[in-house]
C-alpha cells in the first residue's frame, strides 16, 4: 500500500519537476513547481514527519511560490522578451548546479544525525516537542545563524526600499 503511494508520489514529483524546466510559459512552470512541492510534502508524510510536511507547504508553496507567481504575473513575460543565453553559459550553469549537488550529497553522507539517540530511545522523534528540543539543544548555533541570516536579508530589503524613496 505505502509502496504504491510512494511510486505515485515519485512519479508526480519527477514529472512536474521535469515539466517545470521544460514548459515555455513561466506561470505554468511556477504552477508545476507548486505541485512538485506538494508531492514532496507527501514524501515527508510517508516518513511520518507531519511537522516538516506542513512547514514545507506553508513556506514553499504558501509563501515563496506565491511571491514568485506574483512577480511573474506582474512582469507578464513573453517568449520574445527572454534574452537568448549562449551555450557556454547554459553549460556552466548545469556544471555548477551539479557541483553544488555533489557537495550537498557528500556533506549529507558524512553527516551524523544528532537525533539518533532520540530514535534509539524510542520516543516519538517526529513530534514537535522533540524536534524543538533537538533544534535548540544540539543545533542551537546553526539555528541562530539561520535567524541572523534572515534578519540580515530583511534589513537589506528595508534599506534598499528606503534608498529609493530619497531619490
Amino acid at each position, binding site marked *: 500500500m505505502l509502496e504504491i503511494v510512494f511510486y505515485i508520489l515519485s512519479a508526480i514529483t519527477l514529472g512536474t519537476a521535469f515539466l517545470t524546466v521544460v514548459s515555455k510559459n513561466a*506561470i505554468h512552470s511556477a*504552477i508545476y513547481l*507548486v505541485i512538485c512541492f506538494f508531492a514532496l510534502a507527501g514524501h515527508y508524510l510517508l516518513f511520518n514527519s*507531519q*511537522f516538516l510536511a*506542513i*512547514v514545507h*507547504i*506553508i513556506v514553499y*508553496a*504558501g*509563501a515563496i511560490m*506565491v*511571491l514568485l*507567481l*506574483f512577480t511573474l*504575473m*506582474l512582469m507578464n513575460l513573453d517568449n520574445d522578451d527572454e534574452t537568448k543565453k549562449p551555450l557556454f553559459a547554459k553549460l556552466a550553469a548545469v556544471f555548477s548546479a551539479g557541483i553544488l549537488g555533489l557537495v550537498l550529497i557528500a556533506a549529507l553522507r558524512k553527516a551524523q544525525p544528532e537525533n539518533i539517540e532520540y530514535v534509539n530511545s524510542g520516543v516519538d522523534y517526529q*513530534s*514537535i516537542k522533540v524536534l524543538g528540543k533537538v533544534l535548540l539543544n544540539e543545533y542551537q548555533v546553526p539555528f541562530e545563524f539561520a535567524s541572523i541570516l534572515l534578519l540580515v536579508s530583511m534589513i537589506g530589503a528595508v534599506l534598499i526600499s528606503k534608498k529609493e524613496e530619497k531619490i
Partner: protein
Amino acid sequence: MDSVFIIEKSIIIVAVFALTMLMAMYSTWAERKVAAFLQDRVGPNRAGWGGLLQPLADGAKLFTKEEFFPNTPNKFLFILGPAIAMSTALITSAVIPWGDQIEVFGRKVALQATDIDVSILYIFGVLSIGVYGIMIGAWASNNKYSLMSAVRASSQMISYEVAMGLAMISILMMSGSLSLKDITVMQANDGWNIFYQPLAFLIFLICSFAETNRTPFDLAECESELIGGYHTEYSSMKMGFYLFAEYANMFISSTILAVVFLGGYHFPGMAWVNENWGINIGALLGFLTLFAKICFFIFFYMWVRWTIPRFRYDQLMHLGWKILIPLAVINIIITGIVMVLFN
C-alpha cells in the same frame, strides 16, 4: 475494528462537509437579512417563509445561467481557480473538534475528523494555499482589473498571515500543544483564552477579517475601482463557487476563533452535565454551544460589514505591518514574562 473506524470517520467527514455547505448557504441568506435589519428594510421574503428558500433559488439561478468563457489561452487554469478556492475552504474543517466524545454502541467516538499533532500549522498551511485559487483564476481571466484585484487580495492575505501566526504563538506558549483538541481541553480546565489573551484575540479577529477578504478589508472587490474584483470574468456556478468559498471561509474562521479563544465546545458546568446526564447529552450540549459561538462570530462579521466603511489600501498595509505585527510581538514577550514570573 478497522472498517468500523473508517465508517465512523467517513460519517463525521460527510457530516462536517454537509454542515459547512449548509452554513455557507444560509450565511448568504443571513447576510441579506442582517443587512436589511441594519438598514431598516425587510430583506428577502418572497421565496419561502421569511425568504428561507432564497439560497436554493440563488443556486438554481447560478446553475442555469450561461457559462461565459473570456478570450483566454488558459481555459484549464480558468476552471482550476474556483475549484481551488472551494477545496481549500472546505478542507480546513478536518482538524476542528466539534464536540467531546460520544458513546455509540459501547464505542467512544471523538467528534473530530482527525486529531493531528500539528492542527494549527495545518490550518495556516491551508490558508496560505487559499491564495492560489484567487491568483490563478484572476490571472487566467486575462483581465487587468482581475489581476490587480488578485494582487491586492494575495498581498493582503500574505501580510495578515504573519500577524495571525504571531498572535497564535502566544496561545501556543500557554497550551504547549498545536492540537486544537488539547487547546480546547486546556481552556476547559483553566478558563477561556480570551480572558488571558485579549490582545491576541483582537489581533486574530482583525486578521481573520483580512484573510476572508471581508469588509473593512474587501479591497479585492472594490467595485468603484476594480469593477467586480477577481471574479469579474466569471459567470454562472464558477462565480458561485468564489462567492460560496467566501462564506465557507467565514464559517471556518468563525469556528477557529470560537475554538481557540472561546473554549470551543466547553460551556460552564460541562463536567457536571457529563457526570449526571451522561456524556452523550454533554457532547450534544457542547456541540450546540460551539454552534452558538460560531453563529455569534458570523453575525459579527456581517455586523461589521454593514457598519464600517472600507479601508484605503495604504491604511490596510500600515495597520498590518506597523501596528498588528509589533503588537503581536509585544504580546508574545509579555506572555513569556508572565509565564516565567508566575510558574
